[in-house]
């Protein structure tokens, strides 16, 4: 199982949710189960409906059709506050006129006090209000310590850096132990370095909180590194829901394969030959597709699954190196296929950089078991062993 012992406990149940804004359909009959302790990422390009789905779970938007249940309880028609969810916004949505401590404490203040207890003088003088504010500041302190922001409690958000604000937003979300965490691209306003550190922190927060996380992002690196499962969305529909490894190695369809992986997967149009191999521009791939001869299909090869040799070989795709990208740990070769003019990307070890200068003739060969085949409708075809 991709997630641990309590996988059978329901965290978030999304059943047949449909949503349109005016005449635009944003979500089309989406159903998804998130385990009670699972970290699920809604991944997709902008405009795919992932944020809308998150907002429907939070109760900030109403679904046109379908139902949401949290922890087994149907919450349709409930106000956001009644759903016991916490949300971290892309902009962090901190209250700029409140101190960090007041920001983190607001969800507790609203739940543990009545409105008369929050009136300016009573708040300081009435015993019940003072007792509540003591327990609140104790809990705020605890949440702040967990995120190492306890030294900023008296500051205003404007006095904090982006990374610190993001921690305040996380602290405000975790302070009252909600049953579901909802995160809407919480890292997209951080610079690249901080983002990598924050990924580890959010994953750690998830382990400690032990509740369901639904995390929205368009960044596949965030999805792949933090999630138990990834739900890939496009055009308002779920394309595939699977663990990061599964969605990378066994994408359900061409669009999934093309969205996941960087650099992008190489897609070669091919035709099944009568001898069982597949003819592509620039060569023949020794892959047994199990399809009848002359079937047209798309061959997907991840950049790291090419085996590059200098010069010409009998099998494989021949081409010319057009460009090299040396990232230090990896070297990416942009190869133009022979006669076809298609550009392929191959990952090779940086050590062989010298032997494949731009203009060099190379042959790209592959391991037949690592190739992905898609039929003309884009569905993946299982390769015959």
């Amino acid at each position, binding site marked *: 199982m991709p997630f641990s012992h309590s996988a059978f406990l329901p965290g978030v149940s999304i059943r047949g949710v449909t949503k349109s804004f005016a005449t635009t359909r944003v979500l089309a009959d989406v159903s998804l189960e998130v385990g009670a302790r699972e970290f699920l990422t809604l991944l997709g390009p902008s405009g795919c409906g992932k944020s809308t789905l998150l907002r429907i779970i*939070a109760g900030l938007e109403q679904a046109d059709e379908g139902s949401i249940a949290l922890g087994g309880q149907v919450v349709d028609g409930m106000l*956001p*506050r009644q759903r016991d969810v916490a949300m971290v*916004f892309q902009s962090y*949505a901190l*209250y*700029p*006129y409140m101190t960090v401590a007041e920001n983190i404490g607001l969800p507790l203040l609203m739940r543990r006090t009545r*409105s008369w207890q929050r009136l300016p003088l009573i708040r300081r003088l009435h015993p019940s209000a003072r007792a509540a504010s003591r327990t609140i500041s104790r809990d705020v302190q605890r949440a702040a310590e967990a995120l190492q922001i306890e030294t900023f409690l008296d500051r205003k958000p*404007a006095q904090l850096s982006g990374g610190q604000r993001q921690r305040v937003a996380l602290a405000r979300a975790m302070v009252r132990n909600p049953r579901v965490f909802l995160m809407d691209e919480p890292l997209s306003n951080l610079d690249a370095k901080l983002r990598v550190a924050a990924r580890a922190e959010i994953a750690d927060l998830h382990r400690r909180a032990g509740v369901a996380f639904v995390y929205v992002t368009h960044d596949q690196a965030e999805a792949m590194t933090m999630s138990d499962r990834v739900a890939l969305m496009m055009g308002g529909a779920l394309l595939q829901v699977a663990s990061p490894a599964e969605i990378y190695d066994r994408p359900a369809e061409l669009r999934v394969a093309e969205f996941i992986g960087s650099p992008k997967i190489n897609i070669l149009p091919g035709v099944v030959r009568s001898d069982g191999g597949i003819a592509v521009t620039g060569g023949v791939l020794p892959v047994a597709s199990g399809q009848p001869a002359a079937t047209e299909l798309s061959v997907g090869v991840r950049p790291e699954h090419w085996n590059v040799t200098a010069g010409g070989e009998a099998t494989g795709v021949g081409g010319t190196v057009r460009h090299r990208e040396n990232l230090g740990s990896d070297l990416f070769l942009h190869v133009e296929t022979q006669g076809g003019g298609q550009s392929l990307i191959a990952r090779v070890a940086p050590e062989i950089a010298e032997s494949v200068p731009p203009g060099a003739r190379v042959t790209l060969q592959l391991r037949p078991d690592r190739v992905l085949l898609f039929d003309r409708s884009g569905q993946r075809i299982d390769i015959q062993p």
Partner: protein
Amino acid sequence: MTTTALTLAAERGRRRSGQARAEAIAAYLLSAPAMLCLLGILLLPTLATFVLSFTDWQFGAPTFRWIGLGNYTQLATDRVFWRSLSNTVLYVAVVVPLSVGLGLGVALLIEAGTSGRAFYRAAYFLPVTATLIAMATVWEIMLHPSVGLINVLLDGLGLPKQNWLKNPDLALFALAGIGIWQALGLNMVLLLAGLKAIPRDLYEAAAIDGADGPWTRFVTVTLPMLGPALSFVLIISAIRSFQVFDTVAVLTEGGPNKATEVLLYTMYQEGFSFFRAGYGAAITVVFLAFVLLLTLIKARVAEKRVHYS
């Protein structure tokens, strides 16, 4: 260090200060036109008024005498001036809270509304664009004791008719009503802009955090986020209503029995009806002192405490 090195260093320093001086001269030359305009249009007239308030100059007279604080000591015992000052303060005290409060109410209603927003915005803004002199004539008819719409309505409701502009107890409040009617639109538009600037996700965060009742949401998000706009609107309204003049000049001429005598009207009469320019200038200085005070309050309290970034 050798002498030569010292000389060289000194030479370099001199060259640098010479260059700095040249830059300073260029800066003054470049800003000179703007500075002259500022001086000629804003500062000199204010200074002239200030100087004039220490003289007994009569408008059009060839000579004048310095009388020091004479005008001010006379002001201190002038019952019309004190009446005028207290009327002005009362007028401000009525117009500012009501025009800002109602303006905020209308802005919130328009912002919350789903249809006809543009219409309501335009309708409430109409009095701001109309000339108050012309509108004052309309109000004169509305407030007319026998045929005025307001008295007709009161009568229809079984309430006694009032002689709005001739009753010393009511005249100032009638003018304040017109002042509110006129100021409300501008306040509404400014506050509407302030409301629009509040990020939506703050309301959403508040909804999730549990601050989702209308009142709680208002005091948790709207009011504090509106702080900068609200303080600006308050000060602008105060300064503008301190300048009340048109309605007084057209409708009541300070009457009945000085009940609507206000600072600018008194100043106008002293300066331009009685030609006591020096005395009028002294009233203007008092007026400017109040406006300056309000501006300082804005600079100090408003900008320090209400801005967040």
